[in-house]
């Protein structure tokens, strides 16, 4: 049986994009974010104890990183006594999804030339074509091809 090469019918499902601007994040900033996502909230001292000590980083450096995340809008904070307690403004899944979308050039006009993605899958494919292809593959498997 010769499998005919025929055009695929697509039905494009348009989704309004959820755009979140992701600033550049350094390793320490990511480590702080991961800590806060895991714990819910943390002070600079707690964050230093968890991620700074093992990296040989001072408390001031961790404080600066948290301050930067606050200014980037990724952390919110409340003052308790003399110290701030930081919590995440953006859920982890949402930030990671937005970052991935940025890298893949999903919602902007960036050419994203340095990415080769395996699929283009915002579309719902014609069920009949899918079924035909599946049947063909099944047939080939049964014939041992």
């Amino acid at each position, binding site marked *: 049986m*010769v*499998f*005919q*090469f*025929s055009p*695929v019918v*697509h039905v494009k*499902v348009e*989704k309004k994009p959820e755009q979140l601007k*992701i600033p*550049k*994040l*350094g*390793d320490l*900033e*990511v480590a702080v974010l991961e800590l806060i996502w895991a714990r819910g909230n943390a002070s600079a001292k707690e964050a230093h104890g968890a991620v700074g000590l093992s990296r040989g980083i001072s408390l001031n450096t961790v404080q600066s990183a948290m301050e930067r995340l606050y200014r980037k809008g990724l952390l919110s904070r409340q003052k308790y006594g003399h110290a701030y307690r930081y919590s995440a403004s953006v859920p982890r*899944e949402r930030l*990671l*999804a937005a*970052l*991935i*979308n*940025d*890298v*893949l*050039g*999903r919602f902007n006009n*960036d*050419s*994203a*030339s*340095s*990415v*080769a*993605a*395996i*699929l*283009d*899958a*915002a579309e*719902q*494919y014609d069920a009949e*074509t*899918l079924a035909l*292809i*599946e049947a*063909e*593959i099944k047939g*080939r*498997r049964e014939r041992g*091809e």
Partner: protein
Amino acid sequence: MSAFLGFAWLLFLLAAGTWLLSSALVPLLVRLALPVSLTPGARAQRLWLIAALPLLLPFTVVSAAFFLGLAKKLDWIHDHCVHHGIGHPHLCFEHLPQLFLDYPQALVAGGFASVLLLLSGRFAIQQWRQALRLDSLKAFARGSGRLRLIDDARVLAFAAGLRRPQVFMSRGLLHALNRRERRIVLAHEAAHLRHGDLTKTFVFELLLLLHFPLADQALRRSWRQVMEERADDRVVNRFGTTAVASALLAVSKAAMQPAGALSVAGADPLQRVQRLLASPAERKQSGVFAWGYGAAVLAAGVATVVAHHDLETLLGILV
């Protein structure tokens, strides 16, 4: 000095004219010269040639005009310029054109240069931002080698990065596929790295800077499709056609699930599956286009030299 500027202005007009002509030809070539029946390699070759046309054709014509001027200066060809009248600028170093260049000419030339600089600058900034985003993504991803795992429920697999390209795969993809399918997807992405596809795409995008907006989109789409099909073919050699087609189909179906829906700048997987399943005899190669293209560009250069008098007359009308 003004005579040299006049000569430069003529060359600029030549370059701009041929750039416009080649840009007008590109949509026609995209429509006619990239049938899906050709192998991905053949289509890639044609895409390179089409993408390079707005650069190659003006370069050839301007070089030919420059050579003509030089040839007269060095007495390689007979100097017949003295027989031309006023209002007929010469592409000639012996009799540099006496043109009155003023603000309009400066504005036009400056405008072109500014647009080119703007596009190049924007491209450079895009690449720099992309590098920053990738660095941020790597900080979230697990693994430290060429393979990075992203904690995302969606079905994702991509190769990324110019300086140190890596493969990224998502938790969603690992859960959605069986072991063999995962190996095929990984091999596909690794094929992009091994064959320098990301660098080639970068250079291709550089060429697209010289194209009009809609034409460059069509070329970009075709290029990405071809890149993915080539990677598919490389993986077919190792796993077999049916296995690769089946893996692609599994990825497509998994990505259609609600959590899996994602629009990325990739290629059409169902078209790729159908191509894989098509008979090998239906896939053609052809060198005719490349030869024809080369001959046409060369002919443009030769025509510039042979018909330079008519060209000078045309330039005289324009200036």
